[in-house]
């Protein structure tokens, strides 16, 4: 994603990268980052938390105005839960001794539902 942001910025379009994986996004050095310390898959909020989602996106867009130089990072003061127990669970599943959760590198479309395939491909 950082490559996309850097390219658009180079073409004169300001960009804001939302992010939940701070180390990965910082390594790519995009122009601007708004960080949300939520589990992956929730970059702009918890499911059905409309107020939270709106605030996160609002803050991200505001950074387009407030950030005055490259590589600024806004750390939003939000936490997923009070204990942070989800982080230990992420390490348990995704660290040494966990399993590779990536799907096989299949070259055919991977639909969310069988009905989606029928609607898209007629079969």
């Amino acid at each position: 994603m950082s490559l996309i942001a850097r390219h658009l910025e180079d073409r004169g379009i300001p960009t804001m990268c939302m992010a939940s994986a701070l180390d990965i996004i910082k390594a790519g050095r995009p122009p601007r980052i708004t960080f949300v310390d939520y589990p992956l898959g929730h970059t702009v909020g918890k499911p059905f938390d409309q107020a939270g989602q709106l605030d996160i996106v609002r803050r991200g867009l505001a950074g387009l105005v407030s950030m005055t130089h490259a590589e600024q990072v806004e750390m939003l003061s939000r936490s997923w839960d009070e204990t942070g127990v989800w982080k230990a669970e992420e390490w348990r599943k995704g660290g040494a001794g966990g399993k590779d959760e990536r799907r096989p590198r299949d070259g055919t479309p991977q639909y969310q539902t069988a009905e989606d395939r029928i609607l898209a491909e007629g079969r």
Partner: protein
Amino acid sequence: MEPIEYMRMTRELYESLGHQPYGWLHAETPPPFTRLNKPLSQCRIGMVSTSGAYVVGQQAYHYRDDTSIRVIPKGTPTDRIHFSHITENYLPDPRRDPNCVFPVDALRTLEAEGVVGEVAGDLFSCMGGIYSQRRVKEELIPMLADAFAGQNVDAVLLVPM
């Protein structure tokens, strides 16, 4: 509490499984920086989500370095936005509420509030888990850049999975 070190986590996982290390991007040079040249309330905002979002009826993404994009009109009902992404383990909540990674409702609200001038008519998605940085640069990025140029956007929000 400190953010999770995902690169170390994944490095340790792959080592324990005997896999080759994942090749994350490490940019060697500072990024370009372009200032917004007008108030946000006068800007047309574009958005790309690298979550593998597609509209029901469109072809889903495949999981072998798919460098294609999908055009998702901003008026698309959220229940018509589905996902295919190589890391499906992160998709359960986005599949219940696409706004977790494709914040179309929030963008529509900010447009209605006048916080942004306008949300571009077409939003975009792509697949984030592309291994080949060369193919990202040569195939995906030119396509996305042309797509945003066609939408005449003033700024872009990027949302990873």
